[in-house]
């Protein structure tokens, strides 16, 4: 239906929600097929061991078992790793099934196929592996000593070293009036999508045509890479991402189980399904973070930041998954935050350990960077005795509307950081809080107030293909969109991005609705099926709207141009006499002489009288390669109360002011911020993957791995009034999928430290568990008794 209403900027209700909230969504666990069998993996109870033998006899004889297979039974290539970030990077060989050595808790050595899932799991437990145990190395610094090698053929556990290259005069790190040096550790996190992984492979054996349905963020990348791993011709491999229950980066990957399911379907000629268990998810899906930074800030006594230097150790895990060493590198471009120092250095060393491979986890490198720079700025402020707001204000890059080169070397599209800080300070009532804090300290209250800031930028919209090439990433960063205007006035949109909770069906419909003068209800957005959608690069890195949405914008422009030709023909005027307005092409000065897109679509469909040289059907495809990244920014402020007797922290106020450029759907943006902040709070106060000394994951269930619930997540006040348009794309959009997770952890930790800083505490690591806070207070008190400052 043609309309003059506009939808961009409106909180349009999500088109996705009815099926989700009525339980009619189509997650992989709902899929079943005639003749389908189930797959389960045998993951032996070793962390690091040489495999001496695999006995499948008992497993093969168990009820319902179709077969038990080891590595030699498959003709599969190595699993894909697509980001060899340096020329001399050492790349561990990684196969779907281990045959020589088990290198971490999640390594599988055999796969069982049975008629039911339960039978497959029982039989997988009966696969007997004899092995010679080797010492396990979990600690990165221990692994770096190379006393125990994870991959003998690589000769070292320090597998990659990357430096940003640096900028400015580095003598400042010795000669500056104030030099702050700190070390921060950021533990591993488990992504915890509410839906674990799962897949179903089936096909037409006679045609060697195969379909993989997988709970993935990246059906297109899965297709091209698994075509290589399995040898299935790419045009005969279809990958479907059905409704996907969250990914957070953990499904931005290509996994052993996907390759095995395809291999088994091909071998058996039957549909093969696998659903991951939660404990399996905790060891066999990727982890995030797992880094240690040595940081140096050079500054002046009055608070100017002169130089920033970061030396990072990054835990790769036992193998690389799809992107592993690229994750710290991504962060390497944003360690200056929204500030403007004169000197900059970043380097990291990637180290393999006997643990789950790390890879992208919501924010991917940028939360790690933001955490250390924001901690460091607060330390600097404490050192020189200034308010952290004052120090930030002195160093924030002034507002800019055109792209400007940052010290890290990339062009930042636009930004107005101080404006977001001012809004956040107003919303949180900063001065009033500081007064309350002073009063509480004077009274010696058991519960002390703390205020923590995080002013951040991030780099989204991955990415310009030429830059990805320069960074040695194997693929490009473009995306595609197709629009088909149907004869009844409805519109079909196909996108190369692959949403898994982000609301593309709604947001994309809003973009097209405004462009073509129809309503979002008239538009159906198709995604997540490589047979249906245009080639694209899927969804991660807050890229979808700034790349895929921009592609859609250009497809809209193409449709409108073709529509103009047809409208001019039908109205018997020259194209130049037409202008677009109020949802139609009309004759300039005569708005009654108009043709709407639905009217033109019908004409283009029956094609009875089209202008010379115009093809029937009103449709277009556009492929867009962004000229730059997009750079959101903002200010988050967290207010906590810390119980100084127990160390318990309660968040009493949380303000998030995010500038993600032009906002298409403010409700969806708010939802992204809420979810992101919740995960950031989790990272700051609750979550930590802990291994014991022998390399077993002790936080192996949700009882020990503390994902916070609605009770623990605070009320979040958001403000979307700052919308500095991106200069990268015509929509002016920047991306919001990761901002909350990037901004929140330092805001929370800075607040916790601030609450007890008057007791002498200067540092508390993530997660700030009650015990960590209690120890920090106790140690600071005893150090103060000894006349020293305190840290924990």
């Amino acid at each position: 239906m043609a309309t003059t209403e506009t939808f961009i900027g409106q909180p349009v209700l999500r088109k996705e929600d009815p099926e989700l909230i009525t339980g009619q969504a189509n997650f992989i666990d709902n899929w079943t097929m005639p003749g389908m069998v189930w797959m389960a993996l045998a993951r032996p109870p070793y962390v690091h061991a040489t495999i001496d033998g695999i006995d499948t006899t008992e497993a093969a004889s168990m009820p319902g078992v179709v077969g038990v297979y080891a590595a030699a039974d498959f003709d599969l290539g190595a699993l894909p790793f697509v980001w060899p970030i340096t020329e001399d990077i050492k790349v561990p060989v990684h196969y779907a099934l281990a045959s020589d050595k088990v290198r971490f808790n999640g390594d599988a050595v055999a796969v069982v196929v049975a008629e039911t899932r339960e039978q497959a799991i029982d039989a997988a437990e009966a696969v007997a592996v004899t092995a010679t145990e080797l010492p396990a190395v979990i600690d990165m610094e221990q692994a770096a000593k190379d006393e125990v090698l994870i991959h003998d053929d690589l000769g070292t556990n320090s597998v990659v070293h990357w430096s940003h290259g640096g900028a400015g005069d580095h003598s400042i790190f010795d000669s500056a009036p104030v030099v702050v040096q700190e070390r921060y550790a950021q533990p591993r996190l488990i992504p915890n999508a509410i839906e674990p992984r799962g897949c179903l492979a089936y096909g037409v054996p006679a045609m060697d045509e195969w379909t993989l349905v997988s709970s993935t963020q990246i059906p297109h990348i899965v297709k091209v890479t698994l075509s290589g791993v399995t040898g299935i011709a790419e045009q005969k491999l279809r990958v479907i991402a059905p409704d996907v229950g969250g990914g957070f980066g953990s499904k931005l990957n290509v996994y052993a189980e996907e390759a095995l399911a395809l291999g088994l379907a091909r071998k058996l000629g039957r549909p093969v399904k696998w659903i991951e268990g939660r404990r399996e998810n905790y060891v066999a899906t990727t982890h995030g973070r797992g880094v240690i930074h040595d940081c140096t800030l050079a500054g002046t006594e009055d608070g100017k930041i002169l130089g920033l230097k970061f030396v990072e150790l990054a835990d790769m895990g036992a193998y690389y998954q799809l992107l592993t060493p690229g994750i710290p590198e991504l962060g390497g471009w944003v360690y200056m935050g929204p500030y403007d120092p004169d000197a900059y250095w970043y380097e990291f060393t990637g180290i393999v350990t006997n643990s789950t491979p790390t890879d992208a986890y919501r924010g991917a490198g940028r939360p790690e960077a933001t955490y250390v720079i924001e901690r460091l700025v607060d330390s600097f402020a404490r050192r020189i005795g200034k308010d952290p707001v004052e120090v930030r204000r002195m160093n924030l890059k002034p507002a800019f509307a055109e792209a400007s080169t940052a010290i890290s070397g990339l062009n930042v599209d636009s930004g107005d950081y101080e404006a977001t800080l001012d809004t956040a300070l107003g919303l949180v009532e900063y001065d009033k809080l500081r007064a309350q804090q002073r009063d509480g300290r004077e009274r010696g209250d058991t519960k002390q107030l703390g205020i923590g800031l995080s002013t951040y930028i991030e780099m989204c919209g991955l990415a310009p293909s030429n830059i990805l090439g320069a960074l040695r990433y194997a693929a490009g960063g473009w995306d595609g969109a197709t629009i088909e205007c149907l004869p009844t006035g409805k519109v079909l949109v196909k996108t190369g991005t692959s949403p898994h909770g982000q609301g593309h069906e709604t947001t994309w419909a809003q973009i097209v609705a405004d462009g073509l003068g129809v309503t979002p209800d008239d538009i159906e957005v198709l995604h997540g099926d490589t047979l249906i959608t245009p080639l694209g690069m899927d969804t991660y890195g807050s890229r979808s709207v700034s790349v895929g949405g921009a592609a859609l914008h250009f497809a809209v422009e193409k449709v409108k141009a073709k529509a103009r030709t047809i409208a001019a023909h039908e109205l018997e005027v020259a194209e130049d006499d037409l202008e677009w307005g109020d949802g139609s092409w009309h004759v300039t000065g005569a708005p009654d002489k108009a043709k709407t897109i639905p009217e033109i679509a019908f004409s283009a469909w029956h094609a009875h009288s089209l202008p010379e040289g115009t093809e029937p059907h009103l449709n277009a495809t556009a492929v867009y390669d962004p000229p730059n990244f997009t750079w959101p920014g903002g200010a988050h402020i967290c207010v906590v109360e810390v119980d100084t007797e127990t160390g318990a922290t309660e968040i009493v106020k949380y303000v998030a002011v995010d500038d993600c450029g032009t906002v298409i759907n403010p409700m969806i943006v708010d939802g992204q911020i809420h979810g992101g902040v919740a995960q950031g709070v989790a990272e700051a106060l609750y979550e930590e993957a802990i291994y014991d000394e022998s390399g077993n994951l002790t936080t192996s269930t949700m009882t020990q791995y503390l994902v916070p619930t609605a009770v623990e997540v605070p009320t979040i006040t958001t403000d979307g009034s700052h919308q500095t348009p991106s200069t990268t794309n015509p929509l002016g959009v920047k991306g919001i999928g990761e901002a909350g997770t990037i901004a929140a952890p330092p805001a929370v930790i800075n607040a916790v430290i601030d609450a007890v800083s008057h007791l002498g505490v200067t540092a508390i690591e993530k997660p700030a568990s009650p015990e960590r806070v209690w120890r920090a207070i106790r140690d600071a008190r005893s150090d103060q008794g000894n006349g020293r400052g305190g840290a924990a």
Partner: protein
Amino acid sequence: MIPAAFEYERVESVDAAIAALQADDGAKLLAGGHSLLPQMKLRFAMPTKLVDIGRLRDLSYIREDDGGVAIGALTRYHDLEASDELRQLAPIVSSVAGQVGDPQVRHMGTIGGSVAHADPAGDMPAVLLALGATFVATGPDGTREIGADDMFPGLFQSALANDEVLTEIRVPKTPGGWSYQKFTRRAQDWAVVGVAAVRMNGSANVSLTNMGLTPLRAGGVEEALAGGADPATAAERADEGSAPPSDSFGSEEYRRALSKVLVRRALEEALA
């Protein structure tokens, strides 16, 4: 996350439950299931048979009795939490029931199941210990009473015999002066440390959750109080005789320190 294979029988009477237990050494009673089933899913527990007593509604009640309160062993946490009568007669039991797990757990889990499971991190055992509860067990030879001090001999061990069913729990009327200090990381978690304090006979009974292999009476604290110590002084003896675990929720050292803070707060509230 999938239990090992097991048989299942739903029984209609306590006698039938006892018979089923006698018939199979590997059988376990299933009440609300919220302690047992998670252990089975992790294959930490692999009973050969589950004897489901969850529908023995005769064992779900709260009634004033003999100067005390009698609670049927199959009374669910939610019913304890929602009972006006219990809120009047023994408010600590009602309140703590409302702090166990989350709403789903509280609608399934039973007070008797918690006692029989004897998890030192469970809230109910410590509360019942502080109250000096009496436990009624029914076995092949009839019923017997077990005192609170004898009910929890070891880790995940109760005084119930293999062929006994816990049928009733009796607690004294304790309408005033109580506190339960439950320290958790997340709302639905087990207590890192919990402290129950109930004013009794001019002093207070104090017990500890998750400070050892079993729920514990804080004997040192009670002794100090009896000797006239104020709450803060008495609380300094909170961890006497305890053996707190060290795990990812807290080290032994932290738990000891926490128990002192929580005992002091519990006493201040209960004796206020």
